[in-house]
């Protein structure tokens, strides 16, 4: 498996040229938010923060799926793993996230059957091979992964797999952008919009947001020159006072998006008001399973109570996810909260802002 056409976007010469243009153009102090966790990691892994001029601050936004999963959802996952005769299937990132009293990793060490899968279809296969068990897939993620989870429900129905269930904690990005703009204390001059999510929903999904706020927006890919190009386009928009909704990732993202994937997602899920960690309830930002598919809805099948769970005391995840604080400003960062013993999910997920700071950022 060779990933093709990546090296040209990592070419130091191309990056250097874009950086020169950014340096020449950037006069105003600007705060740009990369919404997506994969962007955060790429920015850190490539050392982009130290290459761009001091006039540009990059803030990490609420785009790491595990990080924005609310505490009560994590607690519900742990509760569901304790139901007898169940097998929990999940993507890897979720395993270490601490709930109020435990984590899936600890539940597994305690004997619960919790398995990491690489695709929802692996979860269906596990359900087929274990007809006497109930197999629950914990669905966490944005529009990137939601269509494949929706497709798994459609397949389960077609294949008459009756012991497969999904716990949907999916969230959608455009609604979160609107919520961010209403957050008190927020100071953002432009958004680097997610690449993977936009492949699915297309740039048109951001139009209502853009029309309402006239906020500079550029969709970006994940290689260093992709990100630098998006920063350049944002700086141009801001300096020229010409806010726009632009696309710097045209090799993957279209205006319409992937209409088939969006169709499957809308067939199975409907919008719901859900809580985001640290931000609170965002209207219409969740994807709950439609009544028509309630036989596959773990939330209904297992009557898991979504109790109110308090987020850990002192944890600044919420302010970090909205770009109000950086991890180094959190009193727990590196002192009590480390990847070995994380307090909040931003320190756990490989795409979390605190984990990125801890791993790649040095105060030296």
């Amino acid at each position, binding site marked *: 498996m060779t990933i093709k056409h990546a090296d040209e976007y990592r070419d130091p010469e191309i990056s250097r040229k874009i950086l020169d243009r950014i340096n020449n153009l950037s006069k105003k102090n600007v705060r740009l938010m990369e919404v997506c966790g994969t962007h955060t990691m790429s920015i850190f892994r490539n050392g982009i923060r130290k*290459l761009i001029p001091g006039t540009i601050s990059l803030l990490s936004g609420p785009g790491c799926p595990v990080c924005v999963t609310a505490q009560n959802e994590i607690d519900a996952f742990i509760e569901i793993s304790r139901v007898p005769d169940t097998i929990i299937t999940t993507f890897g*990132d979720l395993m270490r996230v601490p709930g109020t009293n435990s984590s899936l990793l*600890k539940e597994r060490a305690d004997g619960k059957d919790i398995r990491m899968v690489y695709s929802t279809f692996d979860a269906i296969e596990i359900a087929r091979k274990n007809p006497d068990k109930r197999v629950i897939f914990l669905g966490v993620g944005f529009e990137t992964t939601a269509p494949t989870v929706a497709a798994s429900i459609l397949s389960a129905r077609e294949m008459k797999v009756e012991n497969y269930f999904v716990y949907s904690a999916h969230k959608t990005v455009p609604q979160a952008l609107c919520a961010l703009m209403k957050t008190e204390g927020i100071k953002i001059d432009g958004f680097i919009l997610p690449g993977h999510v936009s492949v699915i929903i297309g740039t048109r999904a951001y139009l209502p947001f853009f029309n309402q706020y006239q906020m500079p927006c550029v969709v970006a890919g994940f290689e260093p020159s992709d990100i630098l190009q998006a920063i350049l386009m944002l700086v141009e928009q801001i300096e020229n006072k010409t806010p726009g909704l632009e696309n710097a990732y045209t090799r993957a993202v279209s205006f319409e998006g992937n209409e088939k994937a969006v169709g499957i997602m809308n067939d199975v899920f409907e919008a719901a008001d859900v809580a985001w960690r640290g931000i609170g309830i965002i209207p219409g930002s969740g994807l709950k399973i439609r009544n028509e598919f309630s036989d596959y809805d773990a939330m209904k099948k297992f009557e898991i109570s979504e109790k109110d769970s308090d987020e850990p005391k002192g944890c600044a995840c919420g302010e970090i996810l909205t770009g109000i604080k950086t991890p180094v400003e959190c009193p727990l960062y590196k002192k009590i909260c480390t990847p070995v013993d994380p307090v909040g999910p931003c320190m756990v997920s490989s795409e979390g802002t605190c984990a990125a700071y801890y791993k790649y950022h040095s105060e030296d």
Partner: protein
Amino acid sequence: MKTDRILLDHGSGGKISHSLTLDIMLPVFDNPMLSKLNDGAILNIGGKKFAFSTDTYVVDPIFFPGGDIGELAIYGTVNDIAMCGGSPLYLSVGLVIEEGFLISDLERIIKSMGAAAEKAGVKVVTGDTKVVPKGAVDKIFINTSGIGLIPDNVDVGCDKAVPGDKIILSGTIADHGITVLTQREGMTFTSSVRSDTAPLNHMVGKIFSSSKNVHVLRDPTRGGVGTSLNEIAEKSCAGIKIYENKIPVKNEVKGICELLGFDPLYIANEGKLLAFVSPEDADKVLSAVREDEFGKDACIIGEVVSGHPGKVFLETGIGGIRMVDMLTGEQLPRIC
């Protein structure tokens, strides 16, 4: 949230594993030979220096492209002794076998161990076999221990890196970890990646013949190159700088890492070494490594610097700088 149970993370070779060694093992067994926490212990017996090391192999699957658990068990201990500067001589082998295990598979593993021992030039001189009820172990676990003689003029250790040292890496990284991962249940990759399982003692012999100014040898197994460099930086109280563009990674390995969100710097190797050498001898040692059949892709990936003691920094492909921290627990595939 502290844990009262062992988690799989405790076996990852990263920070969480270290906490087990430091908090539970070291206070009980504490002695000057153990407390160095090198790949093996260095013992003075009758005026001679010996390297002594042990390791246990639990790899799943037991047969994988490029090797098997038996070969791995021989080379792993051979390499640990070689990294202490020793010429490996004698090995012990302990087997724990699950009831129902195929005798033909056992024969295959033992034959592979025999061939590996011959290739490395060591003898298996003692052993033990236990069989346990089905489910008590996963197929077969193997422990090997070994002893080797350290030449008088050799003095290497993870605490001996000094500013100016060049860092030589003997070839491409992450081949073993990615191979084993792609063979596991649930992974549907078809890939031609092979484990790099190999004996490094002959390469170490060539290194010592080419230079007397070798300060550190380390095989970056569990936790990968990133974790090994951090251990060396910490123990030597020295800063390390490496260059992303100089670190060889096979295209296919790079592709799988991208897909899963893994950093190849933290993926296990089983046939690679890092050598820290005085700058004036770096080219000589590099040539010596490249002469070895397992060192053809060797290159200089960085150097020891006088700033930021205890920390590892990487210059990225586009010229940025970032820190390389030690691995925490096992890397988990990302969601998107």
